[in-house]
């Protein structure tokens, strides 16, 4: 039944992909991207097969949905009280609305997702509900997944998304394309975690579009590690200001990986707040990219926004690019941003070593401390995953 809704979306996606062509380096947003890898991931065959053995048991009171397989993820699951699936007609109306509002409807990663989407999990949340866990799973090939969440006025939800892509290094290439749309009604609260852990030849294009109504709260924590080619794009729109947005991200790259985080927050009304901390660790020959846009138009008086980008560069062959972008047209605002790139603090390392801790152990300790500031903010449902073999410990040295 969902298929009837998705058919036109797929069709449109295919047409637009043709029209857009692959992104080029002339486009500012793709200037640093490894376009060969992008092209390679886009041309993978449709995904097949999932290996679930290493997944941890579902935490208590948490409902797990698995998307990516052929099966309808909602068929066998009992949704928690307060959570219901959208009817086809509701879905038809709501799908793509937030993407449009956030200005990302016709971007290449989104169209790629459209062109290949087979399922969409579309849920409505009323009241304060039990935690949800959405696992995006695939064995190899290109998998497109899509989620739509409507949080009604005063609804509250903890959502953890996990992309477990730890595989054998010889396994055939795997690529995840994911799009999630979230609409937060007035006073709604969403704690949203994304734990994406990969190894081997794995790519990720994850696009988030979030619309916030006044007095809503959106708290996003992302922890990404091990993607040979990755791009995470959270776009948040405070439609009328007066909402609270918290973005916390950790991106770890090793080997010859490239991971890019492009965030965008736009305040369309007064008294909005943003608290953003993006961390990156780049080792080996990897390349870590952060681009963070904040827009404060004239209507957004008394906005209070802060953004901090902190980057650890662990190897002389690794590379970090950080580009905050602040655009302000309102005079009564507080906007601060900062960016740092450095290695581990030598005085801290020395302090630990002077207490008898071996150099590599001291470095591991400091790295763990650095990562925990973000990892510890993941929703509670992440705990069993973090100790399982399905994802690697994000704080483990690269």
């Amino acid at each position, binding site marked *: 039944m969902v298929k009837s809704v998705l058919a036109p979306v797929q069709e449109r996606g295919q047409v637009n992909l043709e029209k857009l062509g692959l992104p080029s380096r002339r486009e500012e947003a793709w200037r640093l991207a490894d376009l060969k890898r992008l092209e390679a991931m886009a041309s993978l065959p449709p995904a097949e097969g999932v290996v679930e053995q290493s997944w941890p048991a579902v935490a208590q009171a948490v409902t797990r949905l698995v998307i990516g397989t052929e099966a309808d993820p909602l068929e066998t699951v009992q949704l928690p009280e307060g959570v219901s699936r959208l009817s086809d007609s509701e879905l038809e109306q709501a799908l793509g609305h937030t993407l449009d509002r956030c200005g990302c409807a016709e971007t290449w990663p989104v169209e790629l997702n459209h062109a290949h989407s087979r399922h969409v999990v579309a849920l409505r949340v009323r009241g304060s509900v039990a935690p949800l866990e959405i696992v995006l799973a695939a064995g190899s090939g290109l998998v497109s997944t899509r989620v739509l969440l409507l949080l009604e006025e005063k609804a509250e939800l903890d959502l953890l998304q996990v992309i477990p892509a730890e595989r054998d290094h010889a396994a055939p290439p795997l690529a995840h394309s994911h799009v999630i749309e979230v609409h937060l009604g007035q006073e709604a609260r969403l704690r949203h975690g994304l734990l994406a852990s990969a190894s081997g030849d794995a790519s990720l294009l994850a696009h988030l579009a979030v619309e916030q109504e006044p007095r809503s709260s959106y708290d996003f924590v992302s922890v990404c590690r091990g993607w040979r080619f990755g791009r995470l794009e959270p776009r948040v729109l405070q439609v009328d200001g007066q909402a609270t947005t918290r973005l916390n991200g950790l991106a770890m790259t090793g080997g010859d990986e490239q991971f890019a985080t492009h965030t965008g927050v736009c305040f369309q009304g007064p008294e909005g707040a943003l608290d953003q901390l993006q961390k990156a660790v780049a080792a080996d020959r990897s390349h870590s990219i952060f681009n963070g846009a904040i827009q404060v138009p004239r209507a957004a008086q008394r906005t209070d926004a802060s953004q901090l980008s902190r980057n650890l560069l662990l190897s*002389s062959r690794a590379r970090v690019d950080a580009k*905050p972008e602040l655009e302000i047209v*309102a005079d*009564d605002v507080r*906007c601060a*941003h900062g960016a*740092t*790139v*450095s290695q581990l603090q030598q005085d801290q390392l020395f302090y630990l070593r002077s207490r008898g801790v071996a150099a590599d152990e001291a470095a591991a300790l400091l790295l763990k401390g650095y990562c925990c500031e973000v990892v510890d903010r993941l929703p509670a449902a992440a705990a069993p995953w973090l100790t399982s073999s399905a994802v690697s410990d994000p704080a483990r040295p690269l």
Partner: protein
Amino acid sequence: MTSTSTRDLVSQPYKYGFVTEIETDKIAKGLSEDVVRLISAKKEEPDFLLQFRLKAFRHWLTLEEPDWAALGYPPIDYQDIVYYAAPKQQEKKASLDEVDPKLLETFDKLGIPLSEQKRLSNVAVDAVFDSVSIATTYKEKLAEHGVVFCSFSEAVKEHPDLIERYLGTVVASNDNYFAALNSAVFSDGSFVFIPKGVECPMELSTYFRINSGDTGQFERTLIVAEDGASVSYLEGCTAPMFDTNQLHAAVVELVALDDASIKYSTVQNWYAGDENGVGGIYNFVTKRGQCRGARSRISWTQVETGSAITWKYPSCVLQGADSVGEFYSVALTNNRQQADTGTKMVHVGPRTRSTIVSKGISAGHSSNSYRGLVQIGPGASGARNYSQCDSMLIGDQAGANTYPYIRSQQPDSAVEHEASTCRISEDQLFYLQSRGIGFEEAVSMMVSGFCRDVFNQLPMEFAAEADKLLALKLEGSVG
């Protein structure tokens, strides 16, 4: 309760907006290889320079005008510009007494007296009027120290070897659209050469004046400081008020060898257009310094208050080990002005250090962007950068954008960037007022307090000037 609004006060007119009536030697509008050859011929240039121009021109034809800056302006018709204009006087005069008194009077009115009696006692001045340099003061005194300070055209004649050795080595003739255009058609500018071990005994200063309404100004400045040499240089700019836009596309190249130090300060007050954005200078400038030698230092200080459009990123390439780059900037935009300015600090050598302090003030309907790049190359171990970019917004119609770009490929380095946005708070204003300080004075105190870190870097003679200029520019914009 306080209803005073400086919006109600009469806005100070641009006081440098007059036109000097003088006969000029102008070539016809338009740009072609013939025009490039004509300019070179008029200046009786050696062949290497003509070839340099032609190469630049041919490359320029293949380029497209950049559009990545946060600027909006109607397309420029490059065929509708006069590329050479000079006041009619046969030769550059050996003595000031022979210079057309009208020109001397013009510079007098601009506050840059050139005549023996009135000239500034500790600053040597090169005065550039439209396309040519008309006078340089204190040349002899400087020559005693081996310092060369003259117009670019003179330098081509008298020191062709130095020009050939250094021209285009920092900003290549194909560096970017506007630099290529400048390389093809540049008319005059200043040349400074400080020989080994010499500390330049006085401030050097060039004053640029655009007079003609349809003339583009394309000056070229080259400053070379040899081992252990040091110099402080200041440029000032004004133009008459026309309701058409004039193009100014300059190139400035600085070369600092071992232990050399160059301090380059700019007070830019080109005509900015009227309050509706009619007229004003399009200021597209490429300024770059190369710290070629170990322990060398290049410091840019700019106070940008004029021009309808400013596109300018004075940069440092830190090649020599332990070299230091600095950028201190105040950019003020009001009415419909647009500025997209900042710097590039390219760390190549080990233990190179850079500091960026940028203060943007946006008022009226203006737009003010800081765009910067800090790049730490693989060889720049031990490199350090600290950047601070603050914006002050005055009124809710002005825009302030910040695009600080960091790229690092060297773990043993530290880059730190901080940015903040503020406005003049009602409480701070009230506090000053409640101590008897008038509204306008309170605002200008706060603005100059905001800019203090940058003004402190200006040569003393000009710091107070800059302060006053800012206060003047803001009049009528704070309500």
